[in-house]
């Protein structure tokens, strides 16, 4: 069963992240906040697709419910004033 650490590593390996946090204790529902310059110029759907691609096949089988919140560094800075 994937845990938040494994998910975090998969994302970190694929995307240069300024901030990356993955929470989730029940092994099924996870919450991830991902801040990456790779999201620049992409809409929310495209940003999430980048994260799903980073998770690869693992995403299809095991992670049913991964709540994603994605930001460019600029957007993240704006809400963390």
């Amino acid at each position: 069963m994937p845990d938040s650490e494994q998910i975090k590593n998969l994302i970190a390996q694929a995307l240069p992240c300024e901030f990356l946090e993955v929470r989730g204790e029940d092994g099924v529902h996870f919450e991830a906040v991902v801040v990456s310059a790779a999201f620049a110029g992409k809409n929310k759907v495209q940003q999430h697709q980048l994260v799903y691609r980073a998770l690869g096949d693992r995403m299809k089988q095991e992670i049913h419910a991964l709540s994603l919140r994605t930001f460019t560094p600029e957007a993240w800075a704006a809400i963390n004033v």
Partner: protein
Amino acid sequence: MDIQEKIRAQVSANPVVLYMKGTPQFPQCGFSGMAAQILKACGAEYVAVDVLTDPELREGIKIYANWPTIPQLYISGEFVGGADIMRELYESNELQEMLSQAA
């Protein structure tokens, strides 16, 4: 008509389509329930499609949108997002705007 063409026809023929697990009255998954609640809060008219009744559709829709999960919202034939993105768009009032312009 294969499943991809069926989906294309369905999202083109209806301004707002929500592919979900279960129905708005009886959602079978928390995220699908949230999506239906958000559309209800927007007072939106939409077509709800229960993917649990059609395994081929349930997988086909993921390929169509290149999106691995259900629910999926389509406005004017365009994939808008799943539950997370719907909530974000709702909180920023963008979803209400998009729904009012749905054609």
